């Protein structure tokens, strides 16, 4: 049962990581490309980290929650990175939109 759950989270995480990167490779311009990595990839890593929490907590030596720290950190930093990259792009274009 637990193993199924771990496998499910691994598959979801891997799939979302891939979808985010497909977005990065496929979408037509920088601002649309920003959407893939900031959302899908972050959640993909989140899913894999949840799988890791479940796996190491089920080994019998107590809860193992420190993966949550990595997830938290990524959820805080991903929007900041996206914001800075978007600003750098706007700056290079001379402040003009589109």
């Amino acid at each position: 049962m637990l193993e199924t759950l771990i496998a499910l989270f691994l598959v979801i995480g891997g799939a979302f990581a891939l979808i985010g990167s497909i977005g990065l490779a496929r979408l037509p311009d920088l601002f649309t490309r920003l959407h893939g990595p900031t959302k899908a990839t972050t959640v993909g890593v989140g899913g894999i980290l949840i799988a890791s929490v479940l796996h190491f907590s089920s080994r019998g030596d107590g809860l193992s929650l420190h993966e949550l720290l990595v997830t938290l950190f990524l959820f805080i930093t991903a929007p900041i990175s996206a914001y800075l990259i978007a600003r750098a792009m706007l700056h290079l274009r001379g402040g003009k939109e589109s």
Partner: protein
Amino acid sequence: MLNAAIAFAFICIAAALLLNFWRLLRGPSAPDRILALDTMYINTIALLVVFGIYLDLTAFFEAALLIAMMGFVGTVALCKYLLRGDIIE
């Protein structure tokens, strides 16, 4: 079944890293390359964690945390460089 899921995750993340690398080489602009690098380090964290589950070792989490921090600092520094022309104000 867990092994099949781990294999699936490995394949997905490896494909994702290749796509990111392609974007890194192709550009076309500097922010595109920064975004590709940023995504690459996030995917690397995922790869490390899956590898940790595969080997049943907890030793990789500190590495994953460090990659997360250093990658973020790197992205911020590169963007600041593009925005201001120098990093240290």
